[in-house]
């Protein structure tokens, strides 16, 4: 599978901002339909971006499907699973918006596996069912890479849940995509995954000059990056939640940290113009480079 050097992130599309509630509200107003998300994606594609991240949210998925129709196999889709509340609602049945009702329906639907989990302590049958639903939900985008959400990765690593990570990997491989992990604790994750005897060819983690979310320290994260030659790293939080200029953030990610790829959330067409123009300055001809990643 081809993993592009620079990719479009999706945080602004679901109103995630580290700059304040005004921007969150603005994003929510701005990205209120598929078309508004699609416009930023399409403009990024015009600028030469071929990699697109997608969270398991309906609007993003529909925008990606539209883009697939236009770009076909020339684009790379990186899907992040699961969106916890979305997954809960999908398990409970479409149209269940109320969180508490969704919880109740989720419990009822999964009662047999829950009882089994309570007796045996084995959560895997339930997680298997959730993963099946989630992979089915995103399959219309034909994801090339599927990454496990950072919260679950970190929880699984710190509690030694090898079976959970193995199950995720197997399920993703069955779809033909490349499995990977996102993490907020890079200093721990790589070592734990290795100690479990597992290998994920792609790991996405924060890399930025402020050290924002680089745990336990900038130095340790850079060291892990250097030590892990068999992993392709995607740098996220490259602009440290908007507190670093694109040139500074991208230069740090590619040159200091030496990550192969980056993903950047973009909140508007003009921001796409500015950021990816800087990306071209920093990367030169490498802007359109792609890495060939083997699934196992």
């Amino acid at each position, binding site marked *: 599978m081809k993993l592009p050097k620079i990719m479009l992130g999706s945080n602004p599309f679901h109103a995630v901002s580290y*700059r*304040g*509630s005004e921007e969150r509200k603005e994003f929510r107003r701005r990205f209120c339909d598929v078309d508004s998300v699609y416009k930023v994606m399409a403009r990024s594609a015009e600028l030469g971006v071929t990699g697109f991240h997608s969270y398991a949210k309906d609007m993003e998925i529909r925008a990606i499907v539209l883009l697939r129709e236009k770009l076909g196999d020339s684009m790379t889709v990186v899907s992040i699973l699961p969106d916890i509340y979305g997954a809960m609602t999908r398990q409970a049945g479409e149209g269940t918006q109320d969180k*508490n009702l969704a919880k109740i329906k989720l419990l009822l639907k999964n009662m047999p596996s829950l009882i089994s989990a309570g007796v045996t302590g084995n959560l895997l049958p339930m997680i298997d069912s959730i993963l099946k639903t989630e992979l089915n939900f995103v399959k219309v985008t034909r994801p090339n890479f599927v990454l496990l959400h950072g919260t679950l990765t*970190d929880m699984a690593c710190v*509690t030694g849940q090898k079976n959970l990570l193995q199950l995720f990997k197997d399920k993703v491989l069955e779809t033909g995509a490349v499995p990977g992990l996102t993490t907020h604790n890079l200093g721990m994750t790589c070592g734990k995954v290795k100690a479990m005897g597992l290998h994920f060819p792609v790991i996405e983690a924060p890399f930025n000059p402020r050290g924002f*979310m680089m745990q336990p320290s900038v130095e340790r994260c850079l060291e892990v990056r250097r030590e892990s030659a068999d992993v392709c790293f995607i740098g996220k939080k490259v602009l440290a*939640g908007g507190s670093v200029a694109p040139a500074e953030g991208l230069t740090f990610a590619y040159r200091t940290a030496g990550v192969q790829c980056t993903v950047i959330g973009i909140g508007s067409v003009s921001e796409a113009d500015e950021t990816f123009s800087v990306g071209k300055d920093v990367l030169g001809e490498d802007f359109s480079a792609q890495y060939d990643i083997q699934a196992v």
Partner: protein
Amino acid sequence: MQKKLRVAIAGMGEMGMVRAVIAKGLSQYELVSVIDARGTFARLAGKQLGVSHYTSYPKAASSEEFDALIISTPFTSHYELGKEAVRQGKHVFCEKPLAGDSRRAIEMHRAAAKKGVLTQVGYNWRFHPTFSKAKELVAGGAIGQLKYAGLKVYKSEVTRPEDKADKKNREERFGFYGALGVHGLDLWLWFGGRPSSLSAQTTRVFSSGLSDLISAVCRFDSGVHGLADLGWSHHGFVDKDELTLFLTGTTGTMTVNADRIEMYLEKECGGFPCGDSLIYASEIPYHTEFWFTHRGLSHEMESFADSVLQGKPPSPSWYDGYLVDRLVEALEESGRDNRVISPVIEESE
């Protein structure tokens, strides 16, 4: 070899699980046991975390060796569980609110002090990078002598007719106060001091026992005064809580929330220039051995373990927990009786 704090965690709901995962990730901790009255939850959590599991605290305490208990059960059980653990000489970390009742809270605090065990209450917003940085700046004199501390807290809930499950959930969790309000009130006290006089207007919308919308003006014993506006509301953002402090001193002002600090200084201080400054949370160094879910939680747990292992009093203490419980009662009393009150504050010892 580094000495570890051996802990058991009581209450394996959402918060208990988060505490357990963080404890597994921090080298100061050795998670020994998990406890939950619901046998299935206890068994499941124990198996997932690779530790022993029990359905009651006495069973765990009589079977396992641990130094400290983390109480993540519903607040109505904090008093009994906290006192029992203290009686057995355990150091105790307890989620907020400490007791939801000031008489019980001060009793818990005094019992712990008498026994000589160390206690902390889970007001983790103090450990959030922006609020801890603001405290450091104010203590360093950045805005001169603090004169005003305003507080705005909006929980990310839309004011809409609630289904029974939500309403029950809210009331069982100490209403709006338990959801977020007490975190704001703790920060208010942290900056302002003890309340000496206050007047509140309160309104009940969803809850039968506690107010859902609270507006108050308070004078603190430090001489600082401030306004507070709290409630279930949509003024913030549906998916994110809104908690903002407005601080005015003799030489500057500061507006602080989880995202950023906006500051105006009349003179350069602490590396910040004279004039306006904007500091995003992402620019404030925050490193921890293991980060999970909320910024602040890991540092809070590191702080508790470090304090106990070094024999230093943790902060925020159970006395701080008492002060918040007392403030909630004072706000409710003032609002109900429509009068200015001067809450009686018990001394720590």
